[in-house]
């Protein structure tokens, strides 16, 4: 009976945390100028990214080091549509005019090799759908092969990392089609039903915040029920879950695809707040950063992962922008990662949870 009561304390507390977090996010733009609105929106996009990591890593033990690939694909899909929506890129994107053969036909069908692939992106809705579906499908293919071969643990990380490296190389190498290393930067603002989203205004900010809320709710819905329990079982002991009759491969494939879709979604929103897409988004260091955001906040906590992304980015940017800390800001950031891993292995959320768990039932040790 006492246990029940105490459990409620933690549950209530985390509910309060969720509500407080989103209430804060909703009122924040009233206190921010357009720069901080834009920066907050960008950091919240990183939060969505961290959410994706938390879902696959925290809940199912699948650590993808190629999350940047999905993020980048999402960014490119929407950026292609927004490139075509820019009047300067009509009827053919400038990047193709610069890279075409001198006598090529100036039409999207055939101005450069493969340029016809851009045709569907004339409709923005195609870009938006592709921004989620292409990463999902890509993840489905990669995941299918991996999980059918029963690849686990660090091998999954390495394989996804290698895929991201390949993706980055190919995009850079096909400059006439993709814009190459410099990426896509002359983009129109997103316009839906005549409403233009201003990257510096509250419109994008609220779009990002509401998307974040939607993703969290979706994730909680997916993970709090049966699926979440099975995934946790798989994380703890894959073989045992399999003996119990669960279709381990499909569960893993499912969460891997969802996580990729979330990363793609984040990539699209990144294109909106930052107005460009480039192969550097697929770089290994960026993928590792995402994992670090999730780890700092607490990999197995959705809200924790969000806060982790915000915190790491804030500390990084504030340290690099203050005259005192500028020479040593990477040391501060690096020290933070070491500190987190050594002192709070479950991240901020872990400490939050410990705080309540310990108070209620001091003798219970959380299984890790």
């Amino acid at each position, binding site marked *: 009976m006492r246990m029940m009561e105490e459990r409620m304390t933690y549950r209530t507390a985390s509910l309060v945390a969720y509500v407080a977090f989103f209430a804060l996010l909703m009122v924040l733009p009233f206190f921010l100028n357009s*720069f901080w609105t*834009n920066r907050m929106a960008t950091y919240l996009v990183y939060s969505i990214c961290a959410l994706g990591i938390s879902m696959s890593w925290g809940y199912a033990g699948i650590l993808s080091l190629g999350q940047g690939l999905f993020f980048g694909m999402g960014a490119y899909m929407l950026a292609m549509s927004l490139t075509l929506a820019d009047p300067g890129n009509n009827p053919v994107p400038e990047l193709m005019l610069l890279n075409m053969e001198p006598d090529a036909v100036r039409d999207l069908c055939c101005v450069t090799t493969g340029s016809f692939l851009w045709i569907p992106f004339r409709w923005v809705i195609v870009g938006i759908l592709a921004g989620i579906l292409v990463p999902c499908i890509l993840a489905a293919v990669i995941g299918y092969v991996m999980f059918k071969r029963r690849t686990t643990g660090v091998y999954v990380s390495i394989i996804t990392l290698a895929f991201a490296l390949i993706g980055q190389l190919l995009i850079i*190498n096909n*400059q006439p089609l993709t814009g190459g290393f410099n*990426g896509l930067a002359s983009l129109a603002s997103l316009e839906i039903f005549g409403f233009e989203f201003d990257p*510096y205004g509250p419109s994008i900010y609220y779009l990002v915040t509401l998307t974040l809320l939607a993703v969290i709710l979706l994730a909680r819905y997916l993970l709090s029920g049966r699926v979440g329990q099975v995934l946790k079982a798989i994380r703890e002991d894959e073989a045992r879950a399999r003996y119990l009759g669960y279709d381990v491969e499909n569960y893993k494939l499912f969460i891997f695809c969802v996580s990729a879709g979330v990363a793609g979604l984040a990539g699209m929103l990144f294109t909106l707040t*930052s107005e460009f897409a480039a192969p550097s988004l697929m770089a290994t260091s960026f993928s590792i950063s995402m994992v670090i955001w999730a780890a700092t906040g607490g990999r197995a906590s959705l809200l924790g992962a969000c806060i982790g992304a915000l915190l790491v980015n804030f500390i990084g940017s504030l340290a690099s922008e203050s005259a005192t800390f500028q020479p040593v800001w990477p040391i501060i950031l690096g020290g933070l990662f070491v500190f987190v891993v050594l002192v*709070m292995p479950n991240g901020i959320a872990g*400490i939050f949870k410990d705080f309540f768990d310990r108070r209620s039932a001091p003798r219970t040790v959380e299984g890790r």
Partner: protein
Amino acid sequence: MTKQTRRTFLKVSTLAAAGLATPSILRLGDRAWAADEIPVGIMYSLTGTTAIVEKSMNQCAQMAIDEINARGGVLGKKLRPIIEDPASEPRIYGEKARKLTIEDQVPVIFGCYTTASRKAVLPVVEKRNGLLVWPTWYEGEECSKNVLYAGSAVPNQQLENSIPWLQKKLGKNKLFIVGSDYAFPRGMAKTSKTICQNIGMGVVGDEYLPLGHTEWASMVSKIGSSGADVIFSNVVGDSIVAFYRELRNQGYDFEKLPLCSSTTTEVEIKAMGAEYALGSYVSLPYFQTVDTPRNKSFVEAFKAYAGADSVTHAAMEAVYTGVNIWAMAAEKAGDVTPEAIVANVGGLSFDAPQGKITIDPQNLHSSLTPRIGKTRADGLLDIVDQYAEPLLPLPYSSVGETADKRICTTAGATL
């Protein structure tokens, strides 16, 4: 254990609260410009891969600003630099450019070194009406009205002089073009091929390597077996050093197989060790050895500022030019807003270390003096060829721009 955890929790939550609270504090702090100061942004990477070169550009920008302030500033106001570190990542360049333009409301950003970083900054300055003063020689193909391309060479200013020179003076006729895999080398290769066609020079190879790639063995043996008698290199960054060292290790000699580079500055030569570059050519508008009193005083000033063993190079000289030309335009306009600068900078000339630099009113690029240097044993370059007059910038020469048929005009680019 319990106590400790709880204490850590408190510590962390205080930290988090401080982190979230800081924005508004910062905002109040940063906004309070003194009335006799003009804030200007300086944005060169101090960490990450391109920090190697950009750190010296940062120092040079600060030196130029100090000099201007010592002369009394701009419009009677002191310039106050706000320094940002974009960590060699385009996405952070974009973020820092937003901070400078919107939050700090600087009328100008002196910054960027790579085109990828400029592309990430472009939407910010164009949509939020900022001004970027861009220093590096690059592939052209851009015609923004929010960028002042001060001192930055475009392909025609590095190639129109050098490729015919390789044919005429060195008697070479089979060119191998090699570059890193991105827009600059590809743009340079296109312009090179056009020039080669016009002067009847053969191109036997046009190859690219991933950026940052340092395994050159395959490429060098490919060059060797292609029958080329001269190499034109548009390789950048770390790869340069590995490339030159590999040529040496495979037994090539620049006297027999000359190499002309568009990118190898004094910095890279110092980095690889001058013996490896000895005898190779470079085509750029500025070398430390430019023999004028103006340049001597510039070199001395920079050495006094940054240390006796530092070298000056083309990108750094362009930074210096950029700061000064911007200040001249501001004085002429009586205003520092981007529109006022852009409206008044056209036609202005600055007596730069390399000689007279004039901003073209049509495309906001710079007339520069093309030069070819030959690397000597101390890591500097002997100037073996230079134009008597500055050459007009044609940023779209890769797609056929000529002095009579401009693609980039005040109205924008028409491809």
